[in-house]
């Protein structure tokens, strides 16, 4: 599949909104989800640390 120009690529034969709307949603979800999971992991470690040493002053 050869695209003649970048604008042609983004236009997707007139279906640009639908194609990129789909891929954008996928990208957004698949970037957000791992970040949320990682945040949860870090928070769990922080909470566990606070439990074992409640006198700690960080966070």
């Amino acid at each position, binding site marked *: 599949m050869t695209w003649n120009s970048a604008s042609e690529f983004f236009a997707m034969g007139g279906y640009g909104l*639908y194609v990129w709307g789909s891929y954008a949603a996928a990208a957004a979800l698949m970037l957000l989800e791992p970040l949320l999971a990682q945040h949860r992991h870090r928070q769990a470690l*922080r909470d566990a640390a606070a439990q074992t040493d409640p006198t700690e002053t960080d966070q």
Partner: protein
Amino acid sequence: MNASTLRLFTFAAPSRFYALTGWLIPVCWVATLAFTAAGLYMGFFVAPTDATQGEAYRIIFIHVPAAWMSMVLYLVMAFWAGVGWAFNARMASMLARAIAPTGAMFTFLALWTGAFWGKPTWGTWWVWDARLTTELILLFLYLGYIALVNAIDDMRRADQAGALLALVGSVNVPIIYFSVKWWNTLHQGATISMTAAPKMASTMLTAMLLLTVAFWAYAFAVVFTRARAIAVERESHAGWVADLLKTTIKP
């Protein structure tokens, strides 16, 4: 750690699961990126334009893998929840809980991309065709599972109740799909099926399969990350967590 004997329940111990996933997750991310790049390249620069749907069909490369993942993850979730219930293995139940949000995400993505594909091809954002409707019900099944395990404070009761619900749901998914399909054909709704042009070019199929593998690797990475978080949350009083905190640089 003595790594010579690997028994069936070796990784049922949260500490060993945690250690294993520590190096597995980066591997999965590398695989995700590699297969995503390959799949997207194939999908956008190799696969030709579709005769009937034009460029709109390219949504299939993420729609179908997302739908497959949503269904497979539900079964995997039910499996691990069942294992956790049958063998009283907490880690298996934690893994099941970790899978649920990712499964729900893929279900939502399948619905979203389905709608965005439907609009240019069928002229409407939503159609009550068999697959989309079953997918919607699958989303409700995921949400029900998540809501149930989160509503119960007693961890063991929550794990077991969730397992029962997930197993009952798994049995029902084929029944629901069949009934919705029956209903759909009766109402003469879907004369258009949700697959691409009848003769799917092999490049199209390859791109789809590459992205399926990418989604699998992604799912492993995210689910394992979440499972690690849950393990730390629930086992925060355990010795291995204390050891872990000593050796980890505080975030």
